[in-house]
């Protein structure tokens, strides 16, 4: 990882019609050459963020740099598929692809276009208006991929597809991306779907960055722990300080907590497996949890972090400590 595909500084967008900020004070970097997941609940500002990066709307405040330049300057190098997959209903699929060739005169790859569009046994002479949701997605992706972009921005690319079509299209997407080294930023609110294909996470909620960083690093600096709800000696509620608690839930005499350990965990606490979904959900359920951005500097340490995270089932306090130290979390005040 050498550079950022997208770099946002204090980025914000307000819509007068919707009466408020869709996105506010977002500062983050998304790495080049990777597959980044943009996650958040409905209305979190994911689509706004992607449209800003694609140069389709102007920011109200702050700035966004894409592939080292202003989004408007790098338009030919960006591919974008918006959530509702707009296409011209009156054109046939073949005409749509022909239009793609005409509108992207310097980088069109007709083979990729036809391969992706026709992949599902789709007749290219079919009019767009009579396509199913999945077929539309296929044509929209074909347009974006055949442009052979360096950066591909996908807004809920497979949300309206059945599981089989979803799996198949994600396969096509990832294969094409891997072949050309395309950077992908993909939004979704189905986290499980992203876990297999993405290696970087940007979680936004209420228009702000809540969590950002390499997925392995993020998992490594968090622990899902279970322990007694009250201290044996004093009977007082268990205090998890100095560890940062994202979420804690008491069930009977036990408390289960998602924490960012600041050192060795108390004796007697058990560490459980942490999935990306659990991590994301805990942050979404607890807006008061401090945001966390794992900086680009952590990238060099990501391998060791992953390694220690993978054997953290033994929950050795030293490996936890090493992990959090190596990943250098930069916590921000809530």
């Amino acid at each position, binding site marked *: 990882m050498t550079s950022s595909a997208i770099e946002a500084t204090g980025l914000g967008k307000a819509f007068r019609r919707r009466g408020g900020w869709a996105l506010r004070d977002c500062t983050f970097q998304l790495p080049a050459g990777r597959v980044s997941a943009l996650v958040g609940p409905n209305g979190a500002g994911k689509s706004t963020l992607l449209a800003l990066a694609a140069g389709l709307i*102007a920011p109200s405040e702050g700035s966004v740099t894409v592939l080292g330049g202003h989004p408007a300057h*790098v338009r030919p190098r960006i591919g974008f598929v918006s959530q509702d997959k707009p296409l011209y209903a009156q054109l046939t699929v073949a005409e749509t692809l022909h239009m793609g060739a005409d*509108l992207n005169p310097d980088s069109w790859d007709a083979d990729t276009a036809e391969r992706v569009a026709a992949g599902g046994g789709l007749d290219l002479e079919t009019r767009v208006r009579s396509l199913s949701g999945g077929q539309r997605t296929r044509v929209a992706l074909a347009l974006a991929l055949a442009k052979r972009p360096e950066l591909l921005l996908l807004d809920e690319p497979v949300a309206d597809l059945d599981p089989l079509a979803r799996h198949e299209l994600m396969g096509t997407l990832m294969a094409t991306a*891997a072949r*050309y080294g395309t950077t992908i930023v993909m939004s979704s609110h189905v986290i499980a779907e992203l876990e297999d294909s993405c290696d970087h996470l940007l979680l936004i909620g209420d228009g702000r960055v809540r969590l950002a960083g390499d997925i392995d690093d993020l998992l490594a600096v968090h622990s899902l722990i279970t322990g007694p709800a009250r201290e044996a000696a004093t009977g007082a509620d268990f205090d998890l300080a100095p560890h940062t608690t994202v979420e804690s839930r008491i069930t009977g005499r036990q408390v289960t907590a998602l924490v960012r350990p600041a050192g060795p965990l108390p004796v007697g606490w058990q560490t459980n497996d942490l999935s990306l979904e659990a991590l994301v959900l805990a942050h979404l359920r607890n807006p008061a949890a401090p945001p966390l951005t794992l900086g680009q500097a952590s990238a060099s340490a990501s391998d060791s972090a992953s390694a220690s995270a993978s054997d953290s089932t033994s929950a050795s306090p030293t490996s936890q400590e090493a992990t959090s130290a190596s990943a250098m979390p930069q916590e921000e005040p809530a």
Partner: protein
Amino acid sequence: MTAVAPTAPPATRHPSPAPRLTRWVLRLHRPALCVWVGLVVVLSAALLWLGGPLTDASAAAWEQYNACAGASKCAYDQPAIIRYKEVYSATTFAVLALPFLVAAWAGATLTSRELETGTAQLTWAQSVSPVRWLTTKLALPATLVVAGAGLVVALHHLAWSAGKGRIDTAKSWSDVSTFYSGGPLTVALALLGLVVGVLVGLLWRRSLPALGISVVATTGVFAIVHTALPYLWPSVTQVRNRVQGAPSGAGIAVDEGILTSTGARLPNPYCGGDVFPDCRATYDKLDAVGYYRDFHPLAHYWPLQLMATALTCAIVAVLIFAAYRVLKSRTGGTPRGASTTE
């Protein structure tokens, strides 16, 4: 899964040829293009028919009628006269409707629908900048509108001229609908309708409201131009004394009234003239010595047409500027400075 180690080099990027958007704008608006071409062809044919055979037949009928010199029985080709009048009215109405038709179409489809359905963003997500998109969306239809409306207006002017002095009921040059439909002003108004539609579409981004608002806004600007028209060129003043009576109503009137002995202008009480004793008393009380009338004679036809066309074009220019500003504020435009595209 990390997408690294590209196995194929990215597509070579040269200083790129411009995206070919024009043919796709034509393709996407093919039905409208067919309707426009059909309309221009049908209207042109009707105007040629009007200026040729219909005018000749009507003129011949009028000759027959005038030859009767008021005899109680007169045989003349009345249907020819009526047919000329009907076709003249219908074609004149059709020419006058063109700006509103263009406004409705442009408002409903050109920008609003693309923004509503997201296909504008689809185009911008290709290698087409929003500015180029808008330029094509303005320039291409503008060319077709000016060409089509220009042809129709020229043929209307010819058809009207053919009947001048030959058909007793032929419309005067100063008849409002004849004045508009036979000059470049209507071409400028059609262009105005297009630009209003594009701007309204950018602002409202919804097809149906944009259609309505475009037609209403075009009507508003039309009314402004129509109101300003008589003042766009210095008028001529006609003065008559009370014995001569009020001046005749030829040309385009600007102002009329009565003159007092001091030369002051007063509104005409329209009481009927000196032949009526009451009216004579009213005039005496007002110290009226005669009548005045500011108007435009036939010689002002082209100055008025060209000045009003220029005014409309100035409004069009302002609206085009506004359209680019709206688009730029929404999309951020393309900032100046070195492009980082390789």
